[in-house]
C-alpha cells in the first residue's frame, strides 16, 4: 500500500533521513520506533508531503507521491495525526471534526460523526466545547477522531501516547486496535516501544536517520538489542 524507497531528507544541511526504506501492506499495523531525534517524525512528515525528500521515492496505492503537495494527499486516502496533536484549539470539537472531513464535498453525513463518537464517547459529551479547553487525553482523542473523519486508507499516528497517563495510554492503544479490527491500515510512530510492539504486526527501528532493524512485532519485542535499548532490560 505504501512503499518508501531510499529517501534522503534534509533540514537545511542537516541530513535527517539517510536512505530510509520500508513498506506498509494493506490491513497491517506497522510500528516505527526509535530514540529521540532518530527521524521518526521526519519520516511521517515526508510521507504526508509536509516535507519532500532530496532523493528517493514514495509510492502510495501505486501512485508516486514523492513530490505531491501535502493538501492533496488526504483526498488520496492518507491521514496523519501529527506529533503534538495540533488540533485547532480555538475551534469547537465539532468544528475540528468538520475540518477532518474537509475533503468531503457537501454536508458531512451524521454517521461519520457518530462513528467517531462510537470510538470516543467523551468527545460526544464535549462536542460544543472549544478544543483548547479539553484535557490532554481528550485532545489526543480529538486528533485521532479528526483524522478518521476523512475515511483514510492509511492512518499515520505520531506518538499518540505522548504525555498521557498510563491508563490513557492503554485506552489509546486499545482504540488503535479497534481501528485495526475495523480494517484500517496503520503506521504508528512511538517512543513507547513496548506498547507499540505489542499491537504491531511488523516494526522498524530507526536509528540516526536509517533503519537499523526490522521484523514482526513479537520478534523485535524478544530481540536482545531491542530489550536493551528500548524496553529497559
Amino acid at each position, binding site marked *: 500500500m505504501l512503499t518508501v524507497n531510499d529517501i534522503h531528507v534534509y533540514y537545511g544541511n542537516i541530513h535527517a533521513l539517510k536512505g530510509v526504506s520500508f513498506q506498509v501492506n494493506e490491513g497491517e499495523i506497522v510500528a516505527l520506533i526509535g530514540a529521540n531525534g532518530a527521524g521518526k517524525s521526519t519520516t511521517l512528515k515526508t510521507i*504526508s*508531503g*509536509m516535507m519532500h525528500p532530496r532523493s528517493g521515492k514514495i509510492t502510495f496505492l501505486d501512485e508516486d507521491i514523492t513530490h505531491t*503537495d*501535502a*493538501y*492533496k*494527499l*488526504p*483526498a488520496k486516502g492518507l*491521514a*496523519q495525526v*501529527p506529533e*503534538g496533536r*495540533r*488540533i*485547532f*484549539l*480555538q*475551534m469547537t470539537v465539532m*468544528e475540528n471534526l*468538520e*475540518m*477532518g472531513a*474537509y*475533503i468531503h464535498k457537501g454536508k458531512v453525513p451524521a454517521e461519520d460523526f457518530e462513528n467517531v463518537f462510537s470510538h470516543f464517547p467523551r468527545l460526544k459529551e464535549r462536542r460544543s466545547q*472549544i478544543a*483548547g*479547553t*479539553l*484535557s*490532554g487525553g481528550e*485532545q489526543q482523542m480529538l486528533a485521532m477522531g*479528526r483524522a478518521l473523519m*476523512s475515511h483514510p486508507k492509511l492512518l499515520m499516528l505520531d506518538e499518540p501516547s505522548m*504525555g498521557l497517563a498510563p491508563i490513557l495510554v492503554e485506552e489509546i492503544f486499545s482504540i488503535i486496535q479497534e481501528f485495526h479490527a475495523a480494517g484500517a491500515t496503520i503506521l504508528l510512530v512511538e517512543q513507547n516501544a513496548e506498547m507499540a510492539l505489542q499491537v504491531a504486526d511488523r516494526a522498524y527501528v530507526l536509528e540516526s536517520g536509517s533503519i537499523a532493524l526490522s521484523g514482526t512485532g513479537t520478534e523485535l519485542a524478544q530481540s536482545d538489542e531491542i530489550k536493551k535499548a528500548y524496553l529497559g532490560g
Partner: protein
Amino acid sequence: MTFLNYLLSGISLGSIYAIIALGYTMVYGIAKMLNFAHGDVIMVGSYICFFAVSRFALPPVVGVLAAMAVCTVLGILVERLAYKPLRAAPSLAVLITAIGVSYFLQNGAQLLWTPNPKVFPSVVGNGRLALFGGQLTVSYVTLVTIASCVVIMIALTLFTGHTKMGKAMRACSEDKGAAQLMGINVNSTISVTFAIGSGLAAVAGVLLCSAYPNLVPTTGSMPGIKAFTAAVFGGIGSIPGAMLGGILLGVIEIFAKAYISTQLSDAVVFAVLIIVLLVKPAGLLGKKISEKV
C-alpha cells in the same frame, strides 16, 4: 444633542476604521503579516469609484462594485507577486516588502492620476435626516456608513462561523500545517482572505471619500495607520476585536477633537491605545489559549 451628534460621527468614522481594520486583522490572522499596503488599496478603490461615477457617469452602485472588483483583483495580485514568494522569509523582510508595495501603489497613483486632489462625488447624496424635530440632523453618509459596517460585521461573522471556507480560514490562521493535513489548500485560502480584505477596503474607501471628499494618492495612508491601530487595539487577529477597536477609535478621535483639541486628537487616540496595551497587551479582545500537554 451635540453630544449625540459627536457620538454618531464618531461611530461613523469608527465604522470606516473598523471596515479597514478587518482587512488588516484577517490578513494578519492568516498570513501573520502586517500588510501596510492595505491603506493604499483604499485609495485605489476610491479612484476607481471616482472615475466610474465622475468621468463615466455610471450609477454610484456600479462605481462601488467596480471599485470592489478592482481592489479584490489587486489584493490577490499583490499577495501572489509580492508576499507569496516570501512565505518562508523572516517577517522583517515581509514587512519591508509591504512598505514597498505601499509606496509603489502611492507613486503609481501619482503617475496615473496626478497628485492634484480630486473632489469625490458622494455616492450617497448630500441629504441629511432631521430627527427630534430638527434638533439632531444626521447625514445620509453617516447612516449608510454605520449600516454598511453592521451588514459587513454580520456577514463576516456568518461567513467565518458557518461556511466551510470560513472555517478553513480559521483553521489556517491557527495552524497552517495541520490545515494542510486536513486537505485545505492554504495558498488559495490566503488568496481568498486578501480578496475579501481588499474588497472591504474598497467599500471603506468609497465611504471615507463620501464623508471627506478630498481624494489624493496618499488618501489611504492615515486611515490605514489608524485602522491598523484599531486592529491592534481590539486584538490583532480577532474579527470582533477589529470591529470594536475601529468604532472605539473613531469615537475617541471625534470626542478628543470636540472636547480636547483638534490638533491633539491623534495624540489622545494613541495615548489611549498605549494605556490599553499596557493593561491588556493582547488588545481588548485578543486572546491566547495555551496548549495543553
